[in-house]
């Protein structure tokens, strides 16, 4: 590693001066008609004011949305380019096993009732008595509206020496804190354990917490918590550290590094997502079928009897992973699910009263994501599929493509056959509106989040 980046940069700039000044900008400039002095003066005056405003605005950036973090482009020796992560799908069990070595190790106790008995691991034990568990949850026909049938979720929990455990946290690249329950609440300034899940291939994690000033106060005074940077090794797919003085709302920027020091992710700011870094195993490519329509899927039409629709889809995709699973929410009474290797992502066909009532392709909400599996990639007639950007949707559908902040970010296309809609996977945190580089998380018909009820 270079001892001092900025000294090295100065040396590079010095060396580049002869190359830069050989360009004779002055001659080119004078060859053109010089601008009138008054115009130039006013333009520069405006630019100076704007620049100063920008400086101040950037200094006040604690209170604003952290902008999308650009990925490193100027390649460091040995570093690889970071392609967009494969998002918009729920993981298969095999993907979890492939990408989280802790699950491939020996088992442990299971303090979390919802975890799979043979897929719970004690990942870390800390001197203060904290234990960090990693465990897999499986959802098959459960009455959980935001989790699809055949979803496998990797969760982690923290338990203290008294057996008090954290609530289930879902999986997140953002660290969560564990504090004592109200009766044992930690005093101000006391340490709290923070932890997050990290896939294989990440050796060190850095969290950078920014100071959060209170509104209308001196921005140098951190009201909520102080700026700090914590770097820790990853052990058993868990990055964890005891940190003093952070509130629950602290959300750091995160850097994952491989054992050779290169930055491997996350190159995104996905909110609540254990999005796959580039090295996560799993196929993304597959034949694309443009069959997702407002009126149904391929030859299967909404309103058709469920059995006929399923037969049609079986001819198109192969047999479903789960047939006629009983559900009782959102006006749906049954659902049939195709999963990898039939389809790259989950295709959930909703049934009501023996009829094909709706469908959803992709993750159920904006907060589940991992690599796709092998299988057919389903798309709309125009070619929109999950993991596409909002910008692509706009290009494909023009003004017919609209977005909303509702339900954590949604998109919608209204065509002659009816609406197509879905969730948007936000790429920045905190989420303040849908942005052009956000991703399509799922595609369905009817009202987002409750597809069958609107039809």
């Amino acid at each position, binding site marked *: *590693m*270079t*001892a*001092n*980046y*900025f000294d*090295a*940069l*100065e040396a*590079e*700039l*010095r*060396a*580049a*001066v*002869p190359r*830069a*000044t050989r360009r004779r*900008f002055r001659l080119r*400039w004078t060859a053109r008609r010089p601008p009138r002095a008054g115009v*130039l003066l006013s333009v*520069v*005056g405006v*630019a*100076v*004011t*704007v*620049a*100063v*405003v*920008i*400086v*101040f*605005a*950037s*200094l*006040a*950036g604690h*209170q*604003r949305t*952290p*902008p*999308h*973090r*650009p*990925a*490193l*482009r*100027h*390649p*460091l*020796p040995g570093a690889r380019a970071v392609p967009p992560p494969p998002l918009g799908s729920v993981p298969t069990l095999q993907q979890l096993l492939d990408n989280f070595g802790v699950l491939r190790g020996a088992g442990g106790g299971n303090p979390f009732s919802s975890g799979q008995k043979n897929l719970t691991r004690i990942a870390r034990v800390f001197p203060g008595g904290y234990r960090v568990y990693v465990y897999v949850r499986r959802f098959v026909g459960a009455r959980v509206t935001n989790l699809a049938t055949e979803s496998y979720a990797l969760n982690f929990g923290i338990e203290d020496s008294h057996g008090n455990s954290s609530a289930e946290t879902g999986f997140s690249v953002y660290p969560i804190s564990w504090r004592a329950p109200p009766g044992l609440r930690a005093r101000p300034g006391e340490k709290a354990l923070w932890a997050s899940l990290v896939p294989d291939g990440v050796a060190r994690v850095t969290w*950078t917490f920014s100071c959060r000033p209170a509104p*209308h106060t001196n*921005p*140098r005074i951190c009201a909520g918590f102080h700026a700090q*940077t914590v770097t820790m090794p990853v052990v058993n797919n868990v990055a964890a550290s005891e940190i003093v003085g952070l509130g629950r709302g602290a959300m750091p*920027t995160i*850097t994952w590094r491989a054992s050779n020091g290169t930055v491997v992710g996350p190159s995104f700011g996905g909110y609540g997502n254990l999005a796959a870094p580039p090295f996560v195993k799993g196929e993304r490519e597959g034949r694309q079928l443009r069959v997702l329509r407002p009126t149904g899927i391929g030859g299967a039409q909404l309103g058709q009897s469920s059995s006929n629709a399923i037969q049609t889809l079986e001819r198109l995709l192969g047999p479903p992973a789960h047939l006629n699973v009983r559900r009782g929410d959102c006006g749906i009474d049954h659902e049939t699910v195709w999963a990898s290797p039939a389809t790259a992502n989950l295709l959930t066909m909703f049934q009501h009263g023996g009829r094909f009532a709706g469908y959803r392709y992709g993750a159920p909400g904006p907060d589940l994501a991992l690599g796709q599996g092998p299988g057919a990639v389903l798309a709309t007639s125009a070619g929109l599929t999950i993991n596409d950007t909002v910008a692509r949707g706009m290009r494909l559908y023009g003004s017919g493509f609209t977005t909303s902040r509702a339900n954590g970010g949604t998109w919608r296309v209204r065509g002659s056959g009816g609406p197509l809609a879905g969730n948007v996977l936000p790429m920045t945190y905190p989420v303040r509106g849908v942005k052009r*580089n956000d991703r399509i998380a799922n595609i369905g018909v009817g009202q987002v989040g409750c597809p069958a009820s609107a039809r």
Partner: protein
Amino acid sequence: MDDEALLSATAGGDADAFAAFYRRHLGLVVGFCLRGAGDREAAADLTAEVFAAALSACGRYRAQYDTAAPWLIGIAHNKLRESQRRSVVDDGVRRRLRMRPLELGEDDLERVEALASAAESAVLAAVDELPTAEREAVRARIIDERGYRELAVELRCSESVVRQRVSRGLARVRARMSAESEKGGRP
């Protein structure tokens, strides 16, 4: 030596002049890039590209003020916006100038923060020295991002008065920063 002289000398091939210019404004650019990008690695990468772009364009610099800081921040703003649009930090200028890629170590990342912090302190100190009315207006409008109408109600004056206070306050800060910049030296 002021910025115009340094850049003019750079355009004539004086590498020491550009090094002095670089050291004078490094903190400002790093601070701007760090706040904009929210990421230390990206801030360091952006800083390198900004100074490379400044070096490329030094022959076109025409001084309107005592300092080239606004010009430099303008370049940084463009680079930042471009990187956000493309989701990558462009390295086109550095490639054109055949500059070698640099590695970042942990110490460098800490230095990014230290440089940014120093620059931020300088600007905030300049704000603190404003007359009370202007300081309140600048803080409320620029730092707290409140609207002119809301401020006019709170300060019991017209919107135009608030605008005037903000404008005058910024002008004073600008002048102060120019003077600081004139002193030069490594941040």
